[in-house]
């Protein structure tokens, strides 16, 4: 009887084999990430590296970087700097932040503090979370038909009818880019803020109410200030996502070369109707559509390096803030 229960040969060798295989897969993932970072880093930096190694190599290296970041492109974008693209990216992303932060925070506060938690809000929440997974190009198409054609077209008819048929707002432009990006990143902000709100220990809320505060006072003076880092994380993640996004922007107002910056000294200073340049689109355009072909590789790698540095720095900031936040509230949830 007992014989059947005795394991004759422990399966450790076979087991270990699988263990090592899965470990190797993890290493392959890490190696791929590292290789890509290394490739872009080396290729990008070598664009700035001065060709003559006589004197002051480092000085001219940094000068090259400065030149690249602050000068306008020349020769059909194939040489010179990327300043308008960088400036356009930053402008549209900041404008987007103005739209998305209040709306996102408001919706998150409503969803987690006010709405009754029934199956309808559950579905609504799932739907909003899933908007983050909807292809960005769909948002681009929506932006094109709703913002540009319908909203922009009616603004033109109401306020700029003297300029018609030349469209003012009924054509792709900065404001539509920012609004489309805001739509695209709204779920990111809502999710992050909701997560932050759910991490505030319940006894903070009951403590406030017990001391006689109204619900709005509790939210304004205790809960929302504590959630600020979470909101910040959400906004930073939204910015990181928006900065790397290209596909929807191609439809709503990003161009290969814009004659003017969206902000200048002529009234009204911020030109919402202008076309803008964008770093990601700059890379796409140079990489895919330049006539010379592989001659532009170095400058595209340099631009990619700038874009990736921007996005990675934003992501890292968000991760650091989030880690700090988790550690901070960890102790409270332990005490409960």
């Amino acid at each position, binding site marked *: 009887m007992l014989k059947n229960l005795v394991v004759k040969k422990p399966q450790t060798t076979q*087991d270990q084999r699988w263990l090592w295989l899965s470990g190797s897969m993890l290493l392959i993932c890490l190696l791929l990430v590292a290789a890509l970072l290394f490739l872009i880093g080396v290729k990008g930096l070598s664009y700035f590296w001065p060709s003559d190694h006589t004197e002051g190599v480092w000085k001219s290296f940094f000068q090259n970087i400065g030149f690249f970041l602050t000068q306008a492109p020349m020769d059909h974008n194939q040489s010179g700097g990327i300043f308008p693209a960088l400036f356009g990216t930053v402008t549209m992303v900041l404008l987007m932040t103005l739209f998305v932060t209040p709306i996102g925070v408001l919706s998150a506060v409503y969803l987690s503090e006010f709405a009754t938690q029934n199956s309808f809000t559950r579905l609504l929440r799932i739907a909003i979370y899933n908007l983050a997974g909807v292809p960005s190009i769909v948002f681009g198409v929506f932006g094109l038909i709703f913002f540009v054609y319908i909203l922009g077209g009616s603004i033109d008819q109401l306020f700029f009818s003297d300029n018609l048929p030349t469209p003012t707002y009924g054509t792709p432009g900065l404001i539509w880019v920012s609004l489309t990006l805001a*739509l695209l990143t709204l779920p990111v902000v809502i999710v992050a803020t909701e997560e932050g709100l759910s991490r505030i220990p319940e006894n903070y809320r009951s403590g406030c109410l017990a001391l006689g505060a109204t619900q709005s006072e509790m939210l304004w003076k205790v809960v929302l200030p504590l959630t600020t880092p979470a909101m910040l994380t959400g906004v930073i993640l939204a910015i990181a996502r928006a900065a790397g996004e290209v596909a929807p922007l191609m439809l709503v107002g990003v161009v290969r070369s814009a004659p003017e910056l969206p902000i200048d000294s002529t009234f009204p200073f911020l030109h919402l109707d202008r076309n803008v340049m964008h770093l990601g689109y700059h890379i796409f355009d140079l990489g895919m559509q330049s006539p010379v072909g592989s001659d532009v590789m170095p400058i595209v790698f340099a631009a990619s390096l700038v874009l990736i540095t921007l996005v990675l720095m934003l992501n890292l900031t968000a991760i650091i803030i989030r880690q700090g936040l988790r550690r901070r509230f960890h102790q409270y949830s332990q005490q409960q």
Partner: protein
Amino acid sequence: MNQGYAISPSYQRYRRIKDLLFRQFIRLAAVSVLLALVSLFVFLFWETLPLFRSAKLVDQTSEIQVQDITLLSEAEQTTLSPHQAYPQISAGSIWLHGDRSIIEPTPTGLIQWLVDSSHQTESPLILARSFNHARLDELRLVAIPGSKGFISFDPNGLITLYHATTGRILARTQSPINPLHAVEVSSLGDLLKLTGESGQTQWLQINAPHAEFSWSTLWRPWLYEGHQQADFIWQTTANTDRFEPKFSFVPLSIGTFKAAFYALVFAIPLAILAAIYTACFLPESTRAWIKPAVELAEAFPTVVLGFIAGMLLAPLIELHLARVLSLLMLTPLLLMLFYTLFHRFFIHLKGRPPTPSLLLMLMLLLVTLLISGGLGQQIEALFFQGDLVEWLNQQGIDYRQRNGLVIGLVMGFAIMPVIFSLAEDALISVPESLRQGAMALGASPWQAVVKVMLPTAAAGIFAAIMIGFGRALGETMILLMASGNSPVSDFSLFEGMRSLAANLAIEAPEAMQGSTHYRVLILSATLLFMLTFLMNTLAALVRENLYRRYRRY
């Protein structure tokens, strides 16, 4: 007691009102935002509805500036009647706009013939499709300029509007003039002038803005002008107005699913095995930095990945195809083999099996990668005459530089962190007690993971794959830059593709607002949206159920 703590009733009232206003404001604002968000996609759907509206022939009773309208007489429409060019065709037949197909009235119904320009000598006409018509005696036909539509009428005054491409009868109306002598079409193809026997006239407006769209041309093989057999074709614009637009979603859908499939084939084993190792075998301190390091891959802008795929990887893979394929296929097998050898050797040397450490694994992995790469080259030299791409071409397999393999690799890399992260979350939240129980009953660590933890987390891992799949379906930039964008209906690994998303990025800025092309593109965006949204919702529901189940332990 103390005066300082007393709060005046008016201040209390002020606070209460402020609270009320604040709460109502948030409720109102948030509900309107959420409703607006939902209505976005209702709006997208709404924009496609005109496609499905049926065409009409409207009585134009109001005054028409007749002098502004140029009419095409039947004789002006073509230089030569089809009967003169092809004697086998009966005399009442007409050329459609563009002179590349003929509509012939026969005793059984109307028949469309296509001119086959590839064979000049024998049977130059191809039977395309037939249209049913009840009364055929004395039927006369008029082609509509600017489109592939035509009109049939008989002396009794029954006027029928057809569209040749879709093979549909769009509208049918009884003319107010009876008996009917002649029907003329305006040169823009939007008005009909009916003339009776006694000379009285009547105008009809042709209201068929999206006649060239039909659900069956989207999904079925279809025979178009200039083609020999029915096929799935997506070709929306050309520089002539004789062009027949061809809307088939099949090549685009195949391209989308093919790209996503190859990406998943690459990403799933990598991400899931890596997630198992991270969640189940790494100490907490290592896990804390390894997970964000893999998730870093998610932060790469896809435009950069697309650029690297299209400009760097595609030429490189074409050059070293055999090496890449053997790296992909042989590495896991060789890894197992080498580990077994290493294991035996280690036991022989030290008397105990090696403890798994990332450093040792890295060394073994690098050796394996080197060997499998080299092996690929040897295999190529031995079996494929030293050039796999050339050999493939000889076998009749078309090799494109920008192909499914490049897309699979790079898009697989792009969705790998998503699947990894979610699968790892699912595994790490499996209650520790389950695993400990399994181990206490004598399972080895790997057995505990495979037999107990994996089945428990299976739903979560499935959800992770679904979300990765959804991501791959909608990915645009990588496909736009590295897939070649040719809309072919082909599942081959070495052939290019065009996905729905890339197609939108290419064509949406150029489509004329309100045209059929524009609305078909919106329809494809709606389809893409619904597909990914359903997939994500399913995944979210699965995940939610899973976590509710865990809470019991």
